[in-house]
């Protein structure tokens, strides 16, 4: 029987190769470093948030000597893309910061762990039930809100004051805002604001100011091409006048404050979320201030309190309990709260919020005061955006690029967007 020996050898060689392969693949969920449980924790944010998070994590490691936490962070755009790739590869980090827009998609995709099953180590009793519910999809608690945020007009105080243009006031309208940015440009020679036309968030505030919404209750598109045409015509006119940032500046926005026109010293103000605006302090040493977003012409406020970001745990984590402990620590531990302050919005744990409120200083206090000034004046937040919105945010920005570079009229771009959005939401 020739070849008998070779065949046996062949089989064992293949078996060996497979073993090596299996050994290489295995153990991804069982990452252990020096006998310690290793957790991966990722978030998006600025260096200020990173520094404070590192401190809090170090404290957690001290309290849990058997756990080692590997952290990483990046800007929002890069984070969003990287997490999508990791999540689809089944390699999502054990603990991850999530945006409102990601929850629906990731929860229904089986990426996130049911956190209610970790009740023993993860306490949620001190979080406002309405706020807590925003992390639920189909009745399952997939994520826990970390803080509360709202949009703001953030501006360079010194430049605005010396220009002599009246400071923004509670209840100002989009017309008041347009007058202000025009006047700022005349007085300072720099655009008064970042062109808000590229921002789906700013558009939403403008839309809600007219009693409309981005999405209907059923998850369809809540506005028409005519609405979007009106918004883009409004911002495009201001851009042509030089009252808001030019296309070359606007196109470089990537979610980090460093790359905004205000951050680059090329505009007086910016529309942003309140928590990340802390990043401006390092760039604009003369100081920044927060003003409410403009409201509709009849005074209807468009901005709202939004769960600023969430914490979720990977469904594939090998250490569900340790991961839940880390989430609990970040949300409910007093010492952690003292370190983290308001870097991710005002804390959600009510006891901690009350205790830390007087301790807040610098920008944290500015943000807390700003939110307090809006308390009771805003309308309810919309429900979590449908899955397709994640991609539409990018599409919105791209389509506006076509307007600001004058390759399409606002109407053409708006019709384009509405067609794409409808297709995206259907599929």
């Amino acid at each position: 029987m020739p070849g008998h020996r070779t065949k046996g050898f062949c089989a064992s060689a293949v078996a060996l190769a497979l073993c090596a392969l299996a050994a290489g693949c295995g153990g991804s969920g069982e990452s252990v470093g020096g006998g310690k449980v290793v957790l991966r924790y990722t978030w998006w944010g600025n260096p200020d948030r990173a520094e404070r998070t590192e401190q809090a994590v170090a404290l957690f490691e001290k309290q849990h000597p058997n756990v080692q936490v590997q952290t990483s962070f990046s800007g929002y755009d890069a984070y969003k893309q990287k997490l999508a790739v990791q999540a689809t590869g089944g390699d999502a980090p054990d603990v991850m910061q999530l945006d409102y827009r990601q929850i629906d998609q990731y929860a229904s995709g089986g990426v996130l762990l049911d956190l209610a099953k970790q009740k023993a180590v993860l306490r949620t009793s001190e979080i406002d039930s309405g706020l807590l519910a925003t992390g639920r999809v189909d009745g399952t608690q997939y994520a826990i809100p970390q803080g509360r945020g709202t949009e703001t007009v953030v501006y360079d105080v010194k430049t605005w004051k010396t220009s002599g243009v009246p400071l923004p006031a509670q209840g100002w309208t989009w017309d008041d805002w347009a007058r202000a940015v025009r006047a700022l440009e005349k007085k300072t020679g720099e655009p008064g604001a970042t062109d808000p036309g590229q921002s789906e968030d700013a558009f939403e505030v403008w839309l809600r100011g007219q009693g409309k919404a981005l999405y209907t209750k059923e998850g369809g598109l809540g506005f028409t091409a005519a609405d979007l045409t009106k918004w883009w015509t409004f911002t495009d006119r201001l851009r042509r006048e030089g009252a808001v940032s030019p296309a070359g500046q606007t196109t470089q926005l990537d979610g980090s404050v460093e790359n905004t026109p205000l951050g680059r010293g090329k505009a007086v103000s910016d529309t942003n979320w309140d928590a990340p605006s802390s990043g401006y302090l390092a760039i604009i040493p003369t100081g920044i201030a927060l003003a409410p977003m403009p409201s509709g012409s009849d005074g209807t406020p468009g901005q709202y309190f939004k769960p600023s970001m969430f914490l979720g745990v990977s469904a594939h984590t090998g250490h569900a309990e340790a991961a839940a402990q880390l989430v609990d620590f970040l949300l409910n531990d007093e010492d952690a709260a003292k370190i983290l302050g308001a870097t991710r919005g005002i804390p959600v744990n009510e006891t901690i919020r009350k205790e830390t409120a007087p301790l807040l200083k610098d920008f944290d206090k500015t943000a807390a005061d700003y939110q307090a000034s809006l308390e009771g004046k805003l309308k309810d937040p919309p429900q979590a955006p449908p899955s397709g919105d994640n991609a539409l945010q990018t599409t919105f920005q791209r389509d506006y690029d076509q307007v600001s570079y004058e390759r399409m009229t606002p109407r053409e771009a708006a019709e384009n967007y509405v067609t794409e959005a409808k297709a995206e939401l259907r599929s």
Partner: protein
Amino acid sequence: MTTTAIPTGEKRATAPTTKRPSKRERQGAAWVFLSPWVLGATVLTLLPMAVSLYLSFTDYNLFDPPHWVGLRNYTQMFTEDPRYWRSVTTTLMYVVIAVPLQLALALVVALALKSMKRGKAFYRSAFYAPSLLGASMSIALVWRAVFNDGGTVDNLFGTGGWVNRPGWALLAVALLTVWQFGAPMVIFLAGLQQIPAELYEAAAVDGAGTWRQFLSVTVPMLSPVLFFNLVLQTIQAFQVFTPAFAVSAGKGGPADSTLVYTMYLYDRGFVASHMGYASAMAWVLLLVIGVVTAVLFRTSRSWVFYASEGDR
């Protein structure tokens, strides 16, 4: 049955060394040595390709199980997606700008290096280095900083930056590729050194100047190498991703001006979660590259000169 089995065993035990290994045995050994590669090629290339072909006929969104949709992805791509066509034209423009520029630069530097007497090794390494570095993300980010407004190029020439101007951003991306001309340059250099010196001497005797020598000796003799480089660089250019991704911060902007094919593919797959659509795009790219390569081979008959042909 058992009686027949025993003699076979005896036969094997008594006369193993005298017999030459049969053809089948020798093949078996070949397969054993090939197995790591076969395994890798199957698991890492063929299987994923088959899966991607299947997915291109589905609406797979990464999270839910795929549903068969037939040719819908393909028809949508060709008839309903203006951004797809924009990515096609952008890629073609990129190929047309980057490939000739890169090859021309590689040839010029190779010619200069060939005639160099001293320091050849140093310059060869120096020009080759970008090919090793250039593919990395960090260099691409440096590139972005250099061509950004307020960057080096802006400061030197007052251009206002390239990466934020739709007409110029693609050129910045192409220049990053052109700068990595080291690999074709080394191949050109090897080709140049193969050309017999007698040909130049004979041409000089016939009164041919430098330019005439270049056109009548160097170009024809180098044409197989030129063709090789052209095919290789064209295939690579169609698949450009990293420079466009980094220079436009992952967005293909400004105004979609650097949205090359693979970037749009990435966008559809990983940003919009339309893996089925992205797979279909990948297969169309594969087909197009195949067709373009075939066309290049076809035209090569009229301009590529192989020395052996001269003997006929």
